[in-house]
């Protein structure tokens, strides 16, 4: 096994890279794909530099470690470069209160002492804002978790 490993030489990196990429498909969400990319780059680098200078396997391992670390900011760029916030078709998933900002509702009961309730989607939301009589229309201007801030329209 060890002899085979040694005999394969630089091919090891390419093999390991593809195997890691395959594993990423089986167990998604882990960092394996990027380790695979780093391994492939290491393999390509050793082959490319073989004519100039033969890298020792220790150097190859350190190069691999460096590439793996370098992959993180690259990955973040990918994740954010696609703009994770805007690339989704539904930015308000699990952020129900944020989706309410800008909408206008009618007060069932008056806002007294700065606190009232508004009926939205057959449930009650506590709102804070300037006092207003029942029946007046209010606009939701800010949402912070369960707390909605309203302003008169």
């Amino acid at each position, binding site marked *: 096994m060890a002899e085979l490993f040694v005999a394969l030489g630089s091919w090891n990196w390419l093999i390991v890279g593809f195997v890691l990429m395959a594993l990423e498909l089986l167990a998604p969400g882990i960092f394996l794909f990027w*380790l695979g990319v780093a391994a492939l780059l290491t393999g390509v680098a050793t082959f490319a530099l073989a004519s100039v200078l033969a890298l020792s396997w*220790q150097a190859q*391992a350190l190069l691999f*470690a460096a590439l793996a*670390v370098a992959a*993180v900011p690259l990955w*973040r760029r990918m994740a954010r470069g696609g703009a994770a916030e805007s690339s989704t078709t539904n930015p308000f998933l*699990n952020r129900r209160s944020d989706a309410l900002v800008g909408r206008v509702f009618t007060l069932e009961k008056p806002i007294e002492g700065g606190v009232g309730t508004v009926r939205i989607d057959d*449930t009650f939301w506590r709102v804070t804002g300037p006092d207003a009589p029942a029946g007046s229309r209010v606009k939701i201007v800010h949402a912070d978790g*369960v707390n909605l801030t309203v302003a008169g329209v």
Partner: protein
Amino acid sequence: MSGFDIFSIVLVLLVILTLFAGVKTVPQGYNWTIERFGKFTRTLSPGLNLIIPYFDRVGRKMNVMEQVIDIPQQEVITKDNATVTVDGVAFFQVFDAAKASYEVSNLDQGIIVLTMTNIRSVMGSMDLDQVLSHRDEINERLLRVVDAAVSPWGIKVNRIEIKDIVPPADLVEAMGRQMKAERVKRADILQAEGARQSEILRAEGAKQGQILQAEGRREAAFRDAEARERSAEAEARATQMVSDAISKGDVAALNYFIADKYIKAFGQLAESPNQKVIMLPVEAMSMLGSLAGIGEIAKATFGEAATSQAAARRGSVPPAGPTKSS
């Protein structure tokens, strides 16, 4: 194996492990809390996140999707002392993962207990009939109270629904009997109403019939009276005419009529089948008298005619044919 070999291998392993520890991919629908040396620092939202290995660690993996909890069955005593078995469901959603993780130690149990106690207080203030018929109101009151109570935990209760309200079996049976009695009562009343109406209608019909009959009789009586009057009038007129005729003429004419009638009556008596022998006190004198009367009438009549003829002859053309002088 030199030291450098081992160092290289350990370093590579360390880098790999560190990367695994520092890169966190949070799935959609969850928020993870990060603790730095055990103290909460921030919340990871879904997607790719980096944390500082060795310092930070993932604390709670909080589900921020809307969740359903079953509110277990419990016995509730209503205002009118009926014991009912009630269960329900609550829908809630975590809005603030940090508060939900650290403000309350057992979120689900907290919501369940809170809802159960409030079900008791809300239903305890209502009669059984109200409890059974005002579920919407119960749900709404529960929602207001529980939602306000859980807000410090950074969660929002969206709905609370009472599923089953089961009164004890004997009460259900009594309710069934009550309903049946109500229906029977209604049916009886309707039947009585129908009987009453039909009686009234029948009486009205009889009354109308009698009135119409009486009117008919009255009308008939009027007509009868009128008829009698008319016939009496006619009789009177006839009598008048006869008496006029008698006063103008002769008694002998009257006698003629009587004699005529007398003889006709006599003939009828003779023809009657049951008596062939008739004993009659025939007053020959009166008969003869009436015959004499007839003779007198004839004489008077013919006598008058003769005088009128003579007058005519004197006045104008002599008549053709022989004339007899009487």
